[in-house]
């Protein structure tokens, strides 16, 4: 039976069964693998794997540079009489590039590079016109959501995603990898400086499980919580619900310990 996190010296310590640690560790590696597959497709993976220092780095502060983004207008060209805008959809919904061509799934598409066919130049000038489509997997899309709502200018979500996704995803991968390593110890000891990253890794695991369990509303969440006690339910649903409940408990327990200390 697991025991909640409590502050011990400069760390937070919880007691998990070997099976519990192993399961949560596997979940961390599963979510990490999802993000790795995405990064391989988008060509983002090389830098942070080559640089182990990235593991202890803080979440991205976003300083991707402003690069005179005002001119972006590229999006305006293709819209207007297109069928998707009639339906209130943006190119974000369709994964289209600025010319209305279908993007390969999960692809990073560099409009500027495609036009000038030379990206080895100064590196940054093309940045403000880069576009990237939202992940096709809804669980990945939940981990890496758009930065703007559906009412934003067409193409804005893809432009911002191209600028920011590599950093966000790298920080998530680092936090999940670290969580996987921490979960291999017994008892589970999370150093204070790692606690926010550990909490966000647990949160990402929960976001993925929640998507697989179809949790969209508070009612869905209540339904899943009832599923935990209902072993008549389909085996996989029941199992996922138990995992979701356990990781939720673990994260809440860390929050309780952290917030008590920070009051």
């Amino acid at each position, binding site marked *: 039976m697991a025991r909640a996190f409590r502050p011990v010296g400069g760390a937070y310590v919880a007691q998990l069964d070997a099976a519990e640690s192993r399961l949560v560790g596997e979940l961390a590696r599963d979510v990490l693998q999802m993000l790795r597959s995405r990064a391989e497709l988008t060509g983002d993976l090389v830098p942070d794997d080559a640089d182990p220092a990235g593991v202890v780095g*803080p*979440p*991205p*502060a*976003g*300083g*991707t540079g*402003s690069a005179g*983004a005002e001119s972006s207008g590229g999006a305006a060209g293709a819209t207007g009489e297109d069928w998707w805008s009639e339906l209130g959809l943006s190119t974000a919904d369709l994964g289209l590039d600025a010319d209305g061509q279908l993007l390969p799934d999960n692809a990073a598409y560099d409009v500027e590079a495609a036009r000038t066919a030379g990206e080895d130049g100064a590196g940054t000038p093309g940045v403000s016109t880069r576009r990237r489509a939202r992940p096709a997997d809804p669980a990945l899309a939940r*981990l*890496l*959501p*758009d*930065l*703007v*709502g559906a*009412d*934003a200018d067409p193409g804005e979500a893809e432009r*911002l995603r191209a600028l*920011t996704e590599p*950093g*966000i995803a790298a*920080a*998530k991968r680092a936090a999940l990898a670290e969580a996987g390593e921490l979960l291999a110890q017994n008892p589970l000891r999370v150093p*204070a*400086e790692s*606690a*926010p990253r550990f*909490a*966000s890794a647990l*949160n*990402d695991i*929960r*976001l993925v499980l*929640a998507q697989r369990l179809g*949790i*969209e*509303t*508070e009612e*869905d*969440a209540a339904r899943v919580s009832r599923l935990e006690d209902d072993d008549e339910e389909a085996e996989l649903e029941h199992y996922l619900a138990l995992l979701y409940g356990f990781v*939720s408990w673990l*994260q*809440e327990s860390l*929050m*309780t310990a*952290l*917030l008590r*200390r*920070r*009051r």
Partner: protein
Amino acid sequence: MTVTSEPLVVPHEDTALSSHQERPYLLIVWDDPVNLMSYVSFVFRSYFGFSAERADELMLRVHHDGHAVVASGSKERIEADVVAMHGYGLQATLRRSEG
């Protein structure tokens, strides 16, 4: 506030830049049924440096109203805030203020 670990990002004044612009950008955090209330409050405290009371108040507003404006400022500043929120796994977007 007693800080036991390094803040992840240097806190900033949430309205510092809005006086430079007539229509600042807004950081909107959205309610979702997955994120724990304690976690949302924790993120507001660690990232923005809000007091416990302020963080809880904003968290409850997100929870009850479905969303809340948590910061405002220049486009670059608010983009960075959205990136940080997404790093933590919160649902957040930016939009320009209606003026």
